[in-house]
C-alpha cells in the first residue's frame, strides 16, 4: 500500500511527490537483492577487484532472479517491474559489489534500454530475450578516442553497400566490452547532417570486422572490462539499424537520461557501503578510552555522509518515479546522477578518513569503495555535463 504525500508547488506548476514508504513489492524486491548482495557478492567483491575477474556466475544467478532485465516485459523474458524497482535493485547489488552493479546497470539501461524503446518486435526478440538470463550481457558504444562529452562529433562512419551496412572507426571506454555478446553502437550515416546524421546499430560480438582493444587497467570497478571497440569494414545486415536513420543522437541522449538513474543507483550503493563501513568501525574502534563514534569529529563526518546519501537517494527515486509516470525526467535524472556520484566520492573519501590507517589498506573495503566511486562522476555524462543539462532545463523553465 502506497503511503504518498503530494505537495503542489506554485512555482512552475510542478507536482512534487514525496515517497514516505516503499510499496510492499518494492520492499520485498529490495530485500531479495540485498540478501543476494550480502551473501553472494560481499564475500567475493575484494577478490573480483584484486584479480579483475568478471563475475560470470553471479551475473547468471542475477539473471535467473530477473535482475539483468528488470523493466523488460515478462513476455520477452524480463521481470516486468518498474524503474523504481530497477533503481533499488542496482543500489543493493552495488552495495555488495560496485563492479557487479555496473554490469547490471549497463545491461539494463544502456544495452536493453534503447532496444526496448526503439527496436522492432523482431529486434526485441533477437537482441533482448537472450540477454535477460545473465548468460549474455550487452554493451553500449558511443564514446570515441576523439569525443566523450562531445557526442555529436561521432567520427565512426557507416556506409550502405547493397544489403549491408559497413562500419569503420573506433569506440573508446566501452564497459563490458570483453564480456559482451552484442553492442548498441553509434555511427555517422550522413556527415553533412552533423549530429542529426548519426544512426544506431546492433552488432553481435564477436563479429568479423570488430575487434577489441586491450583491457584498460582501471582505478576502480576492476571486475568490469573496459576497452576500445575497433571496427574495420565491419558488415551487418540492413535490419540491424536500431530506430530510424539519423535518430542515433536522439536515441543516445534518451538512453543516457535513463542510464543516469542506473548510475545514480550504483553510486548510492557504493556510498552506502562506504557509510556502513565507517559507522561499523566507529562502534568498534576505541581511542582516547572510548569507541571513536563518541567523538564529535567522527559523528559530524557520519552525519554528513548520511545526509549526502539520503538526499541523493530521494532525488534518484523521484527521477525513477517520474519516468514510471511517463513524465519528463531529464532534469531530475541529471540531478540524481550528479548528487549520487558526488555523494559516493564524498563518502568514499570520508570513510577512509574515519578508518584512518586501516582505511588505506586492502584488509578493509573502504579503499575499494573510494576507488569504485570515482568513475561515477565521469561515465554516462560527467558531473560537468550534468550541470549543463540541469542549467539548460532550469533556464527553459524560467524563460518568459
Amino acid at each position: 500500500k502506497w503511503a504518498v504525500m503530494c505537495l503542489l508547488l506554485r512555482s512552475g506548476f510542478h507536482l512534487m511527490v514525496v515517497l514516505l514508504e516503499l510499496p510492499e513489492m518494492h520492499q520485498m524486491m529490495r530485500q531479495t537483492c540485498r540478501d543476494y548482495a550480502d551473501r553472494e557478492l560481499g564475500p567475493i567483491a575484494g577478490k573480483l577487484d584484486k584479480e579483475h575477474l568478471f563475475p560470470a556466475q553471479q551475473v547468471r544467478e542475477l539473471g535467473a532472479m530477473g535482475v539483468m532485465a528488470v523493466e523488460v516485459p515478462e513476455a520477452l523474458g524480463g521481470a516486468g517491474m518498474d524503474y523504481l524497482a530497477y533503481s533499488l535493485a542496482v543500489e543493493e547489488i552495488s552495495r555488495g559489489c560496485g563492479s557487479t552493479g555496473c554490469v547490471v546497470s549497463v545491461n539494463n539501461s544502456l544495452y536493453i534500454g534503447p532496444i526496448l524503446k526503439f527496436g522492432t518486435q523482431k529486434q526485441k526478440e533477437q537482441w533482448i530475450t537472450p540477454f535477460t538470463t545473465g548468460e549474455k550481457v550487452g554493451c553500449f558504444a558511443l564514446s570515441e578516442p576523439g569525443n566523450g562529452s562531445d557526442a555529436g562529433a561521432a567520427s565512426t562512419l557507416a556506409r550502405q553497400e547493397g544489403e549491408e551496412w559497413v562500419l569503420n572507426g573506433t569506440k573508446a571506454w566501452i564497459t563490458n566490452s570483453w564480456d559482451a555478446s552484442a553492442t548498441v553502437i553509434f555511427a555517422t550515416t550522413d556527415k553533412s547532417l552533423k549530429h542529426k546524421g548519426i544512426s544506431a546499430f546492433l552488432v553481435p560480438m564477436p563479429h568479423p570486422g570488430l575487434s577489441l582493444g586491450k583491457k584498460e587497467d582501471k582505478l576502480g570497478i576492476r571486475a568490469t572490462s573496459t576497452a576500445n571497440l575497433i571496427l574495420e569494414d565491419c558488415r551487418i545486415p540492413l535490419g540491424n539499424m536500431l530506430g530510424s536513420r539519423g535518430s542515433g543522437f536522439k536515441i543516445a541522449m534518451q538512453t543516457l537520461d535513463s542510464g543516469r538513474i542506473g548510475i545514480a543507483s550504483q553510486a548510492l550503493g557504493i556510498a552506502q557501503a562506504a557509510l556502513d563501513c565507517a559507522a561499523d568501525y566507529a562502534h568498534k574502534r576505541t581511542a582516547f578510552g572510548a569507541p571513536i563514534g563518541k567523538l564529535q569529529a567522527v559523528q559530524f563526518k557520519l552525519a554528513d555522509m548520511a545526509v549526502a546519501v539520503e538526499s541523493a537517494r530521494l532525488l534518484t527515486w523521484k527521477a525513477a518515479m517520474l519516468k514510471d509516470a511517463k513524465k519528463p525526467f531529464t532534469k531530475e535524472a541529471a540531478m540524481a546522477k550528479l548528487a549520487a556520484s558526488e555523494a559516493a566520492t564524498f563518502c568514499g573519501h570520508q570513510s577512509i578518513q574515519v578508518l584512518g590507517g586501516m582505511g588505506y589498506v586492502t584488509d578493509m573495503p573502504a579503499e575499494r569503495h573510494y576507488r569504485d566511486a570515482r568513475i561515477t562522476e565521469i561515465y554516462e555524462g560527467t558531473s560537468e555535463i550534468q550541470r549543463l543539462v540541469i542549467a539548460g532545463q532550469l533556464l527553459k523553465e524560467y524563460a518568459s
Partner: protein
Amino acid sequence: MSRVLVGVKRVIDYAVKIRVKPDHSGVVTDGVKHSMNPFCEIAVEEAVKLKEKKFIKEVVAVSCGPTQVTETIRTALAMGCDRGIHVEVSGKDYEAMGPLQIAKIFAALAKKEEASLVILGKQAIDDDCNQTGQMTAALLDWPQGTFASEVTIDGEKVKVVREIDGGLETIKISMPAVLTADLRLNTPRYATLPNIMKAKKKKIANMKPADLGVDMVSRVEVLRVDEPPTRLAGVKVETVDDLVAKLKANGTI
C-alpha cells in the same frame, strides 16, 4: 498426494546484535530488522522442490502472529508457495506464544486442510526450542522425521535421512507425517523478481486460533532475560605440566 503445510516464523534477523530490554522482560524488538527464520526458509524450499518434482500439488505457507507476519508469508509465496494462512495472534497472547500453542494450531490446520505433510524448520533462531515439530506430530499421532537432511518421497512413504549426534540415521515413515528441516537439507532459493510480482496475486487467508478451536493459554511464564555472562580472558601456559598444575590448583581436577 495433495497438500503440504509449511510453517514460517518471523524472527529477529540473524545478523542483528540482540539487546536485552532494560527491564529484563525480553529482548528489544521495536525497530529491529526481522526476517524469516532460516530453518523455515529451508522448509519452504523443500516443499517447493517437492511440488516442482510433482510429488505434491499445493504448498500452503502458515504463520502465527500480528499483522507483520504477513510479510513473512509473502516471502514464502515469492519463493513458490501457492497460498498463505495468517493465524492472527497479538498482544499478550503473542508474547506468551510458544511451541505448544503453535503445535495445536498446526495440528488443527493439518486436519482442516487435509495435509499429507507438515514441514517445519527444526527450530527457531530466537528461542531455539526445537519442540514444535515434535509436539505437532504427537498431537496428530502422525510419524515424524526430524532434523531432516534428505527427504525422498516413495509412494505413500517418506524416506528421511536424519542428522543425529552419532551421524546419519535413515528412517522410512508413512504419510501423513511431520518433517522438520535441518541446515543441510537444501540451499533456499532467492525470491526472483517475477515471483515477487506473482506473489502479489496469491491469497492469504485470515483466521484466529479460536476459529480452529485452539486456546492460547500458556503454562510457561518468562521470569527474566539476561545477557550471557561476559567471557573471561583465558590464560596461556607453556607446557602440559603447567596446564595440569593450573587445573589442579583451581580445583578442576
